[in-house]
Every structure is written in structure tokens, then in C-alpha cells.
């Protein structure tokens, strides 16, 4: 008679030990964005058209997400250009994705500001979404996804960062200043 009794128990013990080691390493070094799911993030946002938006509503497609603020003229324009390159690459591959831009500065960047922002920069595709949330939701999303930022009066100090969720809403990859070619990272 075949049994998996003792071997099964040993297997469980080894797996738990490995998980513990990984968790210890995670506490020390890994970013807060590991294995984050869309459904874990703050849910309530407003689009540039004034509609209420839930992040879980984007599940089913890959989601390319970044944060920006409308009066940033140094880093955010480069990030938008990079996102457009990613969009072009996905278009060539025939892959669908939602591009989500969350505002760093809800006090200054309301729906009207974002609406104007995307008009001026011709970022008007229907799969691009510019969202504004509360200060708390913005800070929490930034924390969970590793978007480090601080405000210097009306300026937002931040780096260029993009995270990608798969179609199940699970964080897949993060792109930053050290990523060589963002369009190829997917």
C-alpha cells in the first residue's frame, strides 16, 4: 500500500521552514509592493471625467500603473513618454492593458486638472485613466506600491516608477530609474 503519510508531513515542515526564511528576508529588504493585489489597494477613486472608479474594476486586463502630478515638468513627462512606448509595444503585440495614473497631489490635481492634462498631452485613449483620491488613499497606495514621495510646498519630490499588475490583479513587476528599457520589460 502506498502511503504519503510521513513523507507528506516532512514535506510540509520543509515548506514551512523555507517560507519562514523567505519571510525573514522579506522583512529586511523587500519592498512593500511584493505580491500586492489590486484588491488590497485603496478602492475608491475619481476619474478625470468625474466618475467613481474602483481599481478592482481593471482586473481582466494587465494594468500599468504609475503616479504623477499635473504641474511636474521634470520627471512626469518622461514617465508619460515611457508609458506611451509601452502602449505602442503592446499594440504591436495585440495585447490589451489599462494604463492608470494616480495623482500624487489631490489638493491641486482635481478631476478638471487631469482632464486638461490629458487633453494637452494627447493622452486621450479610453484605456488610460487619470485618477484622484483622498490624501489618505493616495498615501496608502503609494506606500503599498513603493512610490516614495514628499511634498515641498506645491512641488512633489518623487522618482519615476511604474508597476504592472497581471490580468488577475497580482503585482507582476516594477519599473524604475534603473530599468534599462521599460518597453521591453513586459
Amino acid at each position: 500500500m502506498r502511503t504519503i503519510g510521513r513523507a507528506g508531513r516532512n514535506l510540509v515542515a520543509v515548506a514551512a521552514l523555507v517560507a519562514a526564511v523567505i519571510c525573514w528576508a522579506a522583512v529586511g529588504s523587500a519592498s512593500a509592493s511584493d505580491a500586492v493585489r489590486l484588491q488590497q489597494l485603496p478602492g475608491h477613486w475619481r476619474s478625470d471625467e468625474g466618475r467613481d472608479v474602483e481599481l478592482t474594476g481593471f482586473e481582466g486586463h494587465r494594468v500599468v500603473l504609475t503616479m504623477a502630478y499635473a504641474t511636474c515638468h521634470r520627471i512626469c513627462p518622461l514617465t508619460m513618454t515611457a508609458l506611451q512606448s509601452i502602449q505602442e509595444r503592446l499594440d504591436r503585440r495585440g495585447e490589451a492593458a489599462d494604463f492608470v495614473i494616480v495623482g500624487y497631489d489631490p489638493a491641486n490635481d482635481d478631476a478638471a486638472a487631469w482632464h486638461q492634462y490629458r487633453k494637452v498631452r494627447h493622452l486621450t485613449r479610453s484605456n488610460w485613466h487619470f485618477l484622484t483620491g483622498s490624501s489618505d488613499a493616495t498615501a496608502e497606495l503609494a506606500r503599498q506600491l513603493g512610490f516614495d514621495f514628499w511634498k515641498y510646498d506645491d512641488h512633489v519630490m518623487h522618482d519615476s516608477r511604474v508597476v504592472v499588475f497581471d490580468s488577475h490583479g497580482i503585482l507582476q513587476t516594477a519599473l524604475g530609474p534603473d530599468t534599462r528599457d521599460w518597453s521591453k520589460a513586459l
Partner: protein
Amino acid sequence: MFTIPRHTLGALLLTTVSVVALAVPASAIAAGNDADAIAVLQKKLDQSIKMIEALTARVQELESRQGGTVAATQTASTGPATQQQVAEVEHRVQQIEAANATRQQDTTGLPIHGFADVGIGNYNPYFANYRGANIGSLDFYLTPKLGDRVLALSELIFEVGPDGSVGTDLERFQIGYQFSDAATVWIGRFHTPYGYINTALHHGVWLADALRRPKFLNFEDHGGVMPSHTVGAWLTGAQRAGDGRVLYDLYVGNAQQDSGGTVFMQNAGTAHGTVMGGGRLSYQFTGGPLDGLTVGASAFTDKVDSAQTNNLTQLRVAGIAAVYDTDSWEHIAEAYVFHDTNLNGPPGTKRSTAWFAQLGYRGAWGVPYVRYERASLDQNDLYFAEQQFGASYYRSAAGVRFDINPKSAIKFELANTHTLDFRVSDVQYGLPEDYNEVLAQYAVRF
């Protein structure tokens, strides 16, 4: 103990299928609707087959992990050591998860951010009586979180002063309350709301595209002639209007003082309770063809005395400003008119002007800029005459900014400065009259 003898598994599954099959209502068969009954049976049989296949695959997976040949049957003894080991590991994982969650939720710390810069050139960019390398400033910017509407910020700077020594300045220290986006009240020491640069580009040199401010708009202890800081109360806000926003500022504070050749903010109050006050109104276009343009006007009045003499000057200053700030361009222009009256000196109103215009292009490779600035300062106006850097001048400059990475930049500037007033005090200070500058600056944020 967890065991699945294979023959027992097969028997269990067969029993399940049989039970499912027998669950078909006998009436359906009895009624003679053979086709429907057969269809129902077929469907249930398909489901059962899928279940059997899934269980079989799982057994095979577990057996393959076990690594091959049949092992001798083990008794029910699970090994207390193994159970204890598993329990310990599970407990440790729970502890780690709790600690990690706690660390991530800890918001009691006060993050310290700021800026720093150093430079090198044939002249010090602010004090032309010095040459060579210079420490610019180390700027610590703190914004403690005090609640949803209570705001606070402090900007503590270590910097080199006109005498070449390193000093500490609490450049800004404000505590405020935000009623709404349209109204925030600040009390403390703040940047006086006039023009554009003084409230848009603060002490963090990294933030500006240009290497330095226009000379007359420098901070008081860096050669500027305007009261860049005010200690008092400030109401500010913005309101959406049409295709843009209306921005307003109203403030009142301690009158400044000429002290040791520079404008002094009187952080502890004034000896005579004199006040200064002013306001600014601007419109920021956020739509249409003028998107990125902000225009505004400002005015303030001040009564500035002197720490060294009995001079007392009534300042009346009006200014206009325009800035075109987009992803590709940064153009800035400001102009001021002074109508000052010496209350203890030469009578009459003294009229002075100061203005600059800067054009900048934001390219992917760098930001080149050019600037022209001119200050015509009546030396019969004792407010300017007493200041170390109060001479009239004009300056032409061209520079470029390169971003090494998102947090650091190198800037270069070539400039020619021509002093228009001959003042004995300038000679005593060692200030050159006409000079060409080649300057470099390394600026960071953290």
C-alpha cells in the same frame, strides 16, 4: 496521520459515482422519458469522471514528490518531533508577519528631506568678493503630520554668510490651518508673497533650473535687496475660475530692518511695533492655448529702520510677474517699482526699479537658459544706500542644467555683471565693479 491507500481511494470514488447515479429520481425513469434520464445521468457521470481525474492527478503529484518506489507502510506514529517542528515554524511565521505588518503601519517617525549644493567658480555666486570653491547650503525640510487640517513646515539651513562663516538659519517656520483649498492661514516665518520666484522656488537650489536667483531677488543674506522673508500671518488660497485658477495672498508681519548691511526679518518682533503688509493676486491658466501661463500683480508696504543709524524708510513696492511653465519651456519675468520715502533722511519720494527676464528650454538632454536682469536703485533712498549689495547693476547670464539622475543635477553659468553705482562701501567690502563669472554647481535633493 494522513494516508490515502490507493485501493481505498478507488473504492471511495466508485461509491460516490454510484450514489450520484442512484440519486436520479426514479420517477423520471418510471415515466418512460428515457432520453431525459439518460442525459441527466450522462451529465452527472461527466462530473464524477472529472472529479476522479483530479483526485488521481493529485495522488500522482504527491507520490512523485515522495520520489519513487513504494515505501514500507509506516505506522500511525507521526513523530512528535516533526509535529513540534511544524508548530514552531508556524508560530515563527506568524510572528514575522505581525512584525512586518506593524513596521509598515508605523507612521510615528518624522521623515527628514531636503537639499544640498556645493559649487566652484572664479567667483562666489552670491558674494563676489570671494573666489574659488564654495559650500552652498544644507537645507533640512521638515513637515510633521499634525492632523488633516493642521499644517507645519520648517526649513532649517546651514549656509555660508557674507562674512564667509557657516551659520544656521531657520529660514522658514510656519504653522498653519487649512480651512479649505480656498483658504489656508499660516503664522510664523514665511517667504513674502511677491512675484513668482520667491514663493515658487525656495531655498532648495536643486529645484530651480537656473544656478541662482536674480541678484536683486536673492535672499537677504545672499545679496538680495527685497524682504524675502516675513514674520507674521499669511492667508493664501486658490479657487478654480474658468479655464484656470485664481491665486491670492494677504499678509501682515513685522517690519524689516537694515542690519549690518542686509535686510533683517526681526524674528522676535520689532522695537516699535512697526508692521509691513501686502498682497498678491494671480491667475493661472490651466487650459486652452495659454495653458501653463500664470500672471500676477503684487504690492507691499514696509517701514524699515536701521540698526546702525536713525534711518527710517517707508517702502511702497508694486510688482508684476509672468511665468510660462510647461513641459518644454520655463520663461519667467518679474518687475518692481519702489516709491520710497526717507522719514529721517533726504526728503522726497525716491523711485527705483528692478526687473529680470529669463527664457529656458526643457530638453531631454538638459535645460539651457538665458537671463537679463537690471536694478536701478536710487542711492538717495537710504533703504538701498545702507545695504551691502544695494548698488544698481545689470547682468547678462547664460547657463544650462543637466540632471545626472532624478535626485541630482549639475548646473553651469556664464555671467557678466556691471555695477552702475560707485559706492565707497563697495570698495571697502571688496566688491568688484565689473566682472565675468564662470560658475558650476552640484545640487541634490534627498
